[in-house]
Every structure is written in structure tokens, then in C-alpha cells.
């Protein structure tokens, strides 16, 4: 007879089944969620319990699976990230480190795990590092440190620049720091090459102006030489007459006829005129020649082959050189006034890049003046360039009477590729390169003061000596 009433289990049976279920749960304690309970029971409450236990086990298994997958996914993102990513605990001990981070410093990931983060820093930085961590720890975990440039230490001992951003999170193991790093070595090298390229490019751009500058003296040297040539032909007639006269004197028989002939030649010539004009024609030619020579010299100076290590050089010379090669760029819109401190000490610097900085400032000044000059007027503005020295630095000021820099763009003018100029006139690299050269390559500073409608002064400060 079919009965829907399940036979009642006795308590021994039930105890056995309960223990069986508990066993399955023990498996779960060990993290084994794969085993589902198969309790052979006719007791419906026990079936219900088994079902719920399995449901919980299965849900836990899925959650663990999903977590593992997410972790694997995160790990692969970390591992394939181009950025170096590492985490450290509040004691500064490295907890995780992706391949890119390890490679950046010349290690295998295992070699840095559980070691102090200071091993990746130069000693000078490591000394103050703990203090910075303490300061961060004192702040809420939401505070992060935006990317900035710092010096790192390669396993080989080589120091190299990286960009470093730090964020923190509160975890069950306490504060955890995440550092995201990018090696800047290559970028710096590119910047350097870019600057060098720009310098060569500007020599190219200046070439037309320079050709013009050379053309003017060359032309009047030519005029003067033609003038001297003409004069010389007349002088030759006089000299021939002189020669004849001298011959007669030598024979001891000077005749009146001969004297008359000489006097006629002399009077027929413009000897007086030539005597007056020759010296200045010669002088002018020499000056013209000197002018050409100095432009050629300046060009050579300006495109100074890139030296990687600083050399002693005169900032005053650099100013003169640059003003000379760029003359054609400013002479139609401005007078350039130089106030160069004659006592200015030489500084340790990279002359080529520094010339480029001065050129960029002078050209910007000329453009700013051009903007405020009425069209087709003979009026000109002024570019005032001065140098002065302090106890351990020198200062260069380039002032213009141009349009000024409006307040709303003041904090962007140093950004790469920021320009307000039309296509072809500016690419927005001038000041970015100037800053790179002055600040990054020389440890100096560059700033400006500006008043719209009155003009701008760029101030460059350079240390006398370069730190090694």
C-alpha cells in the first residue's frame, strides 16, 4: 500500500544524519565547498535541512569562486600593467609587487617581498621617508599623494627619476599603501632630444633672418670695395706719373716739361677726395667684415654641440650670442637694451640649452610686443635684458613692453603645447622647454611677473654650481 507518510526515523538514525551533515560543514571549514551533502534520509525535516545546508555551501562556493576569479583578474591586470604597482603596509614593508615594478628596479618580485620599501630609494630620501609615512598615517585614509617626480634607486645603485603616486586604504591588516610608479628615464631623454631638436630647428628658422643680417654688411663691403677699386685706378695714374718723375730724378735730369705733366695728372685726379674717403671706406669694410664674422661666431656658439655635463660659461656671452643670432626676429618691433653685469661670474651650465632658453624668451617678448604695435608703424617696443649676481646664483631678466599675460592663462603657459598663437607661429613648447632646461637640468627657477597691457618680465635664476 502506497503511503505518503514517510517512516519516522529513530533518534539514533537522526543523530547519525546530523553528524553526517556536520561533517560536510567541517569540510567547508577547511575551505572545501565542492562537496555537497548527500544525506540518505526519509525524514522530511532532515531533507529540508540538507537542502538548506547545501544551498549555503553552494552559495559560499560560488562566492569563493567569484572572489578567486576577481582576484585572478585583478592580478593579471596588475601583472600586465605597464605601470609599476606595489603595496606596502604601515611599517613600510613591501606586500605585493608587480612585474613592472620589480623590473623597473632591477629585481625579481620575490626579491623585494617582505622587505622595507626604503631599499628602493637613495639613502638621502630613505632617511626622511619614515617621517613622511608617519605624516600620511596621521591623515585619513582618503588622503592620497598625487603623482610627482622622485629619485629612485636601481638594484645596481644607479639613481633614476620616477613618477610616483601614492594612495592608501584601511584594511583588516591596518593601513595599506599603494604606489603607482613610472620610470621617467626614457621620457627625460626624449625631452632632452626634443630640446636639442628644437634648438637645431630654431637655427633653421633663424637662418633666413641670419642670411638677411649677413647680407647687409656683405653688400656694403662690396660697395666699398668697388669704390676703393675705382679710386685705386685713378691712384694708379698718379702713381705712374710719380714713377716717371722718380726715374727722371734718378737720372739727374728733371725737366720742366715733366714737372708740368705730373702737376696736370695730379690736378686732374680727385686725389684729395680719395684721401679723405679711403680711410672710412676701409674702416666700414673692416667693421662689416667683423659684423659677419661675429654673426658666424654667434651661430656657431648658439648651436653649441650638446654637452651632457655642465661646463663653466658666461651667461652674458650667451645673451649676446642669442641676441645677435635672433636680431632679425626682433629688430622690426623692438630695441633690445642689454644691462649685463660686467662682474657676473661664470656659471656651471649647459650652454646650448641655455641659449635656447634665452632665445625662447626673446622671441616670446618680440611676439608680445608685435601684438600691441599698431600695424605698419615705425614705432617700436623695448626688450630689456639684464643679468645680475647673488651669493650663489645668477639672475637673468627678460622684460618686454608687450601685451602681458592674462591672469586666466598664467598657470598654463609652462604646460607643453599650450599656445595662444596661430598655427605656424607657435607650438607651445618654448616655455615648457625653458622650464625643463632651467629647473630640471640646472636646478634653477623660472618665473614671471606680468601686467596686461604693460608687459612681462621673465626671471630665470641659475645656481653658480651644479650638484653632482
Amino acid at each position, binding site marked *: 500500500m*502506497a*503511503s*505518503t507518510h514517510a517512516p519516522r526515523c529513530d533518534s539514533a538514525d537522526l543523530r547519525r544524519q546530523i553528524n553526517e551533515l556536520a561533517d560536510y560543514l567541517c569540510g567547508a571549514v577547511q575551505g572545501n565547498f565542492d562537496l555537497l551533502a548527500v544525506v540518505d534520509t526519509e525524514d522530511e525535516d532532515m531533507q529540508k535541512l540538507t537542502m538548506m545546508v*547545501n544551498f549555503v555551501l553552494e552559495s559560499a562556493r560560488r562566492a569563493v569562486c567569484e572572489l578567486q576569479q576577481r582576484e585572478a583578474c585583478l592580478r593579471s591586470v596588475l601583472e600586465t600593467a605597464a605601470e609599476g604597482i606595489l603595496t606596502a603596509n604601515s611599517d613600510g614593508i613591501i606586500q605585493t609587487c608587480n612585474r613592472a615594478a620589480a623590473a623597473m628596479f632591477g629585481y625579481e618580485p620575490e626579491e623585494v617581498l617582505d622587505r622595507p620599501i626604503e631599499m628602493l630609494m637613495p639613502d638621502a630620501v630613505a632617511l626622511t621617508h619614515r617621517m613622511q609615512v608617519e605624516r600620511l598615517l596621521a591623515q585619513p585614509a582618503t588622503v592620497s599623494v598625487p603623482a610627482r617626480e622622485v629619485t629612485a634607486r636601481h638594484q645596481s645603485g644607479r639613481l633614476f627619476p620616477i613618477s610616483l603616486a601614492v594612495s592608501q586604504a584601511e584594511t583588516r591588516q591596518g593601513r595599506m599603501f599603494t604606489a603607482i610608479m613610472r620610470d621617467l628615464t626614457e621620457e627625460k631623454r626624449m625631452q632632452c632630444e626634443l630640446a636639442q631638436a628644437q634648438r637645431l630647428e630654431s637655427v633653421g628658422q633663424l637662418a633666413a633672418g641670419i642670411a638677411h643680417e649677413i647680407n647687409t654688411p656683405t653688400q656694403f663691403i662690396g660697395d666699398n670695395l668697388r669704390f676703393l677699386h675705382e679710386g685705386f685706378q685713378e691712384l694708379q695714374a698718379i702713381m705712374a706719373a710719380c714713377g716717371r718723375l722718380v726715374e727722371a730724378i734718378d737720372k739727374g735730369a728733371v725737366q720742366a716739361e715733366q714737372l708740368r705733366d705730373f702737376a696736370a695728372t695730379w690736378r686732374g685726379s680727385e686725389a684729395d677726395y680719395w684721401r679723405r674717403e679711403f680711410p672710412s671706406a676701409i674702416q666700414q669694410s673692416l667693421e662689416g667684415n667683423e659684423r659677419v664674422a661675429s654673426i658666424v661666431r654667434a651661430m656657431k656658439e648658439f648651436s653649441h654641440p650638446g654637452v651632457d655635463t655642465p661646463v663653466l660659461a658666461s651667461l652674458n656671452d650667451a645673451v649676446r650670442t642669442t641676441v645677435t643670432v635672433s636680431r632679425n626676429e626682433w629688430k622690426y618691433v623692438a630695441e633690445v637694451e642689454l644691462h649685463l653685469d660686467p662682474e657676473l661670474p661664470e656659471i656651471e651650465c649647459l650652454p646650448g640649452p641655455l641659449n635656447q632658453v634665452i632665445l625662447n624668451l626673446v622671441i616670446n617678448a618680440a611676439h608680445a610686443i608685435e601684438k600691441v604695435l599698431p600695424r605698419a608703424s615705425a614705432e617700436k617696443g623695448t626688450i630689456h635684458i639684464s643679468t645680475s649676481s647673488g651669493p650663489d646664483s645668477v639672475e637673468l631678466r627678460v622684460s618686454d613692453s608687450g601685451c602681458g599675460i592674462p591672469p586666466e592663462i598664467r598657470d598654463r603657459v609652462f604646460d607643453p603645447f599650450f599656445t595662444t598663437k596661430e598655427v605656424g607661429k607657435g607650438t607651445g613648447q618654448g616655455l615648457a622647454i625653458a622650464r625643463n632646461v632651467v629647473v630640471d637640468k640646472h636646478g634653477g627657477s623660472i618665473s614671471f611677473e606680468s601686467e596686461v597691457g604693460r608687459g612681462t618680465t621673465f626671471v630665470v635664476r641659475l645656481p653658480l654650481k651644479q650638484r653632482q
Partner: protein
Amino acid sequence: MVGLIPNLLLKLIESAAGPETVAAVLRQAGIPLERRYGLNRVYPDEEWQRLYAAARDLLGLDEDRAEAMFAEFFVQDALARFPRWFQMCRNSYEMLCLQPKIHNAFATGCSAAAARRVLNDKFRTVSEPHRLIVEYRSPNRLCGLYVKLARCIATHYGDEVDLAERECVKWGANRCLIEVAWRRLLHG
């Protein structure tokens, strides 16, 4: 089909017509007389279909009547057996939203892993305020039972609902679409 359902059907037959009818139904359906449907075990859908057809036949019930009777019986049993799920819901709207999860708990909770996938996702719901669209896909074609159960649940919570089947496999659709709209919720 999870054993709870045929288990309850046999109980219903026994209470309505006695143990002899249970035996007759099993015999007509070609199911061994000693079959005990475990709440957490899984049986072939065809077995259930044979069982259900034999029960209707021997009790002389049309589909509508059978569904209504079974729904009534089923809800009484569920209330007694799983009171917690009913307490967790303030009204029938919340209960019907929870229903697919309850079913998935059964599917997930049965130890036969292979059967799980088949059981899962028979029901999918899209809920809007005061409205629920239920998509039901199953070879057992028990959409009528769904409607009756939903009405019983609404009555249990003291709510007023309108129930309509928008699409049905019995009309040639590839799934059933049931719309539940609440005119009144007693709580919430």
C-alpha cells in the same frame, strides 16, 4: 522536478481520496508503489507529468480545478514548512519577488549538481512598482498553477491583485509571460 512537488501531490491525493487512490495513481503513471519523493531530490520531469495526468484522471479533475486544489494545498504546506520565508515578506509583492530565489535555493540545494542547471532559471521576473512581469519556461507547463498560487499568496497577505497571462506556451509562444498587478497592498 524537485521531489517536494510530487510529494505534496501524493499527500493531497491521500487526504482527498485515501491511500488506495495514491496507489492507483502511481500504478497508472507506471511509477513503483514504494516511491518516496524526497523534498531535496530530483526526479525526471516526465515522471511528474505522468503522475499529474494520472491524478487528474483518477480524481476526475479538469486542469483548472486540479491547479486550484493543488495551489491551496501547496500554500498551506509551504506556510507550515517554510514560515520564515513568509515572515520575511511584508506583502505578496515581496513574496512573489522572492519566489524565483526560493526556487533557485531548491535547485542549488539539491545534491545532484547536473540537475541544478535545468531547475535554475525557470522563473525570471521584472519588477516595477506595484507590477511584476514573470517569464516562465518549463516543459511542465504549470503557468496556470503559478496564477492560482499567486492568488492564494495575495489572499494570504490580504492584498488585491489582477493576474493576466500575456503569452503562453499553450498558445504557441516559446515561454509564458504572466503579469501581476497590485490594486492594493495591505502592508507597505
